[in-house]
Each structure stands twice: as structure tokens, then as C-alpha cells.
């Protein structure tokens, strides 16, 4: 057996628990689907915009789906703690970081499933994505790194708050407020000046700009952040920001788990 075999076991456990509650798979998908299938077409009609706007919003809804899903995944940490299962895992001969990484791997898989479902719905509605292998690479890289960072935030929060109610009360502030500021529905340059500056520091702004660059070939989001000539350089810089966000939040989440789970 390899050193990573226990990590695979922990991922398998989390996956088995997740599949027993299909709500966890479907509920986070409802709001983004509503945006992609109902709100975006309605906005297009009301604002007299074109299909490009629908594509813009379709990618923007990924920026809502990822935080919502990863934050809901974090609830499983509190459930494990409340039903005692966490103690059995803490007594297992596996590094404590694996307990976090096992949850993360399933949160990533479920989020990927939902993002793919969202993209397929958008394609079915006739939204046109202009992408190639490189573009898909930027999209996947941004999506995966952003999801890792958001799960780190979810795990950290779940280990800091004692009850599910308190956790859920904080989800809107973490998952939804940044979405309004990060250029999901309109370019960040449409915000008041100081909020445009705030938006440039949000990992989600970088993630969305990268995903649009990758999936739509639209580099305007990157330009609004960096104002540079080279699209590739801007994309690399934004990917770096999202990577730092992912690495930092994962490290913090493991540290917070280790400190709080052990009394």
C-alpha cells in the first residue's frame, strides 16, 4: 500500500457519505442554474444586450457555483464533529492533514461535476464558447485553484464556529457578496472607483477574468485588473494570484483543523 492509500480511503468515505445525501449535490446547483437559464436571458431582454452577455453571465455563474458548493461541503466537517465520527478519524494512524485533504478532494470532484453540468446547460441553451486546449487549460486551472482556496476557507470556518446555524449565517457574506463585486454580472470598471480597486484584490475577480479568457477568449476582465499589453502575461499573473489564494487557504485550513480538533 502506498503512503497515499489512507488519503484515498478518506476521500472514499467522504464520497460515500455525500452520495447518500443527493441534496448536497443538487441544492448548490439550483441558484446558478436559475441565473444561467432564467435571470441571464431576462437581463439580456431587459437591457437589450446580445448573446455575448449571456455567455458573460454563464461564466459569471461559475463564480457563484464554486463558492456555494465548497461552502456547503464545509458543513460536513461540522456534521463529522457533531456526530463524533471526527474522533475516530483523529485516532486513526494517518496524518491529520489527510483528513482535510480527503474532504477537499471530494469537494473538488462534486464542484467539477456541477460546473460541467452548468456548462452543458449553457451549451444546450445555445451559448457559444470560443475555446481551445489552451483556453480550456486556463479555465480549468482557474476553476480548480479557486475551488481549492474556497474549500480551504470553508474548512477553516467550519473549524472555527461551533454550530451549523452559525456557519450557514456566514455563507452569504463569504460566497455571495464577493460575487457581486468580482465582475460576475458586469465589468468591475462599472463599479464606483474605490470598489473597482477592492475588486482587483478579490481572488474571485482574477478567477472569473481567467475563466472568461479561457472559455470565451475575452481578455477584457484581465485588462481591467492589470492594464497590460500581453494577455498571456496577465493570465499568468492572475493564475498566480489564485494559486497563492489556494495554497494559503489550504495551509491555514490544515493548521486550524489541527489546532482546534485536538483539545
Amino acid at each position, binding site marked *: 500500500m502506498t503512503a497515499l492509500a489512507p488519503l484515498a480511503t478518506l476521500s472514499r468515505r467522504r464520497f460515500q457519505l455525500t452520495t447518500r445525501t443527493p441534496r448536497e449535490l443538487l441544492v448548490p446547483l439550483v441558484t446558478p442554474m436559475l441565473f444561467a437559464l432564467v435571470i441571464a436571458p431576462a437581463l439580456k431582454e431587459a437591457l437589450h444586450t446580445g448573446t455575448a452577455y449571456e455567455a458573460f453571465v454563464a461564466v459569471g455563474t461559475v463564480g457563484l457555483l464554486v463558492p456555494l458548493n465548497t461552502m456547503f461541503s464545509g458543513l460536513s466537517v461540522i456534521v463529522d464533529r457533531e456526530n463524533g465520527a471526527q474522533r475516530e478519524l483523529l*485516532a486513526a*494512524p494517518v496524518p491529520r492533514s489527510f483528513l482535510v485533504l480527503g474532504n477537499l478532494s471530494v469537494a473538488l470532484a462534486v464542484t467539477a461535476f456541477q460546473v460541467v453540468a452548468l456548462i452543458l446547460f449553457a451549451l444546450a441553451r445555445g451559448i457559444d464558447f470560443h475555446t481551445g486546449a489552451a483556453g480550456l487549460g486556463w479555465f480549468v486551472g482557474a476553476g480548480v485553484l479557486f475551488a481549492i482556496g474556497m474549500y480551504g476557507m470553508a474548512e477553516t470556518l467550519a473549524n472555527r464556529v461551533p454550530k451549523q446555524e452559525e456557519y450557514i449565517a456566514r455563507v452569504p457574506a463569504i460566497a455571495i457578496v464577493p460575487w457581486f463585486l468580482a465582475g460576475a454580472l458586469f465589468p468591475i470598471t462599472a463599479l464606483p472607483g474605490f470598489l473597482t480597486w477592492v475588486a482587483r484584490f478579490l481572488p474571485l475577480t482574477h478567477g472569473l477574468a481567467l475563466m472568461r479568457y479561457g472559455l470565451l477568449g475575452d481578455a477584457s476582465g484581465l485588462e481591467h485588473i492589470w492594464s497590460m499589453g500581453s494577455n498571456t502575461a496577465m493570465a499568468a499573473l492572475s493564475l498566480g494570484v489564485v494559486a497563492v489564494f489556494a495554497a494559503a487557504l489550504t495551509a491555514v485550513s490544515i493548521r486550524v483543523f489541527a489546532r482546534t480538533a485536538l483539545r
Partner: protein
Amino acid sequence: MIEVRQLRKVYPGDVEAVKGIDFEVAPGEIFGLLGPNGAGKSTTIGMLTTTIRPSGGTARVGGFDVAENPLAARRVSSVVFQEPVVDRSLSGRTNLELHARLWRVEPGVARQRIAELSDALGVADLLDRAVGDYSGGERRRLEIARALVSEPRVLFLDEPTVGLDPRIRHELLEVIGRLRAGTDLTILLTTHYLDEAERLCDRIAVMHEGRIVALDHPQRLRHELGRELVELHVRDDLPAALAVLRAHGIPAEDAFSVGSTLTVPLRDLSAGEAIATINDLGVATAISAREPTLDDVYLRLTGDRLAPAA
């Protein structure tokens, strides 16, 4: 197999739950930690299973220091916690298989162990049901089977029978008693059921307010109270009654009380002589004599001692 030296735990707020305890458990021994709620028993098990961080001292499980080599200490041990610790939505079999994988038991060996243990513990017919549908006793037996799947050298049982009805408790005690048959499994269990400790344990340590206040074989602890004791239901205040007894030659240094009942271990005095004297003094509404039990040892060590005040 277990060595504990000056082990301490101080929780935030300066709450000292364990105050520097020492003990050793030999291979194959069943060792009991007794004490009232809050005595520090579960905290001690938590530190030995590396789920609670010690504040001081050292502890070794299977030769491995729990602070310096926690993974190795966890690999040679298993624990059944006081509260239910299972994935309720998963089947019993899946819970056992997950444990086996985490402890790196080869799949073929794990399958065989699961079949043997589920038979031995009477849960074979339940294995494919969700654990949420199990009764308390069934779940507890599954947890013991799970702890044994990895063939641990050390098994920690934290109040294994708490909350179970008497029949299931009796069955479970039989199961625990059989566990070490043919193996050198070392068991450390905590309980506040004294009959359990007397029935199962080779040695017991009584914990009180974070300290070990007695450690010996159950029979020896009982014999410390002499061959007989008398129980008095006292009419007035206990210290005054005790003072009267002492003034009339009744040896009351080890006396202890529960409610209005005063229990006086007799050393050299016979029960007949003691009862006759006490009857003449008129301090008791009822008197009886009997042999000491482990309950008396426990109550004397963890309850209100009256002698110093008398």
C-alpha cells in the same frame, strides 16, 4: 505496554483535568481507570489515543511516545469512545472496512477478520444495514468489532457499557472478558461501574479530581477496608455522630458518608462488638454490618471523608 509518567492536562481557563499521573500497564493486562464524572479518565484516554494534546509528562503506547511518534502509537492501538462514533448513514460493513483500510489491513485479511469478528460479536446479520438503524447495544458491539479489525496490541475502552440496558451490558461484559483469550491484547478501560471493574480488571486505578488516589488489584483494595464494616443511618449531624463513636472506641479514621448514611470500616473490632456499642450510644436509627465491596473503596476514596473534620 502502556507507560504514563507525570501526565498532565490543563484546559484553557486553567482547568487542570489531569494532575501528573503515573501508571504502567503490562502486556495482556486489563487495567481499569475508575472515578466519578470529571475525574480525568476520558482526558487520560484522549491523551493516550493522541486525540487530546498533553500539557506535560510523557506517555508511551506499545513503546511509542504519544507526543513524539503519534502515528506509530495510533497504529498499534484502537479505541472505543464513550459516545457513539460511527458513520450512521453507512452500513456496518462499510464502517468496518473503512477502519481496516485506515489501519492498513490487507483487504483479504480484513474480509476474514470482519467475518470472524462480526460472528463473535453477534452483529453478522446486521452488517449490511445502515448503522443508524442499530440499537445502542448493537452499535456498541459494532464499534468493538471495528476497533479489533486492525488487531491492535492495545485497546482503549472509554466507558464501554454506559447507557446500555442491564442485559446488553451483561452480554457486552462477557464479550470484553473473552477478548484477550488466546491473545496478548492489552486493554485499558474506564468505567464508573464498579462491578464491571471487579469482574474484568486485573488491576484498577481510582482517579479523583485529576489524581490517582489508589492503584492495586481489586481484591487488595477491598481488603484495605478490613474484613467487615458497619453502616449507620444517622439521626443528627454526621460529624457529631462520628465524634461520639470515636470517643467510645469505635475506629472511625476511614469513615465516609453518603447522604445520612455513615459507613465505618472496622479494623480489629468485630461487627458484633461495634453494633452493640453503637446501639448503646443511640446515635443511629438503623445499623447493619457487611463485608466491604469495591463500591466502599471507591466511595471512601472519592466521596466526603469525615475523619479529618471529626
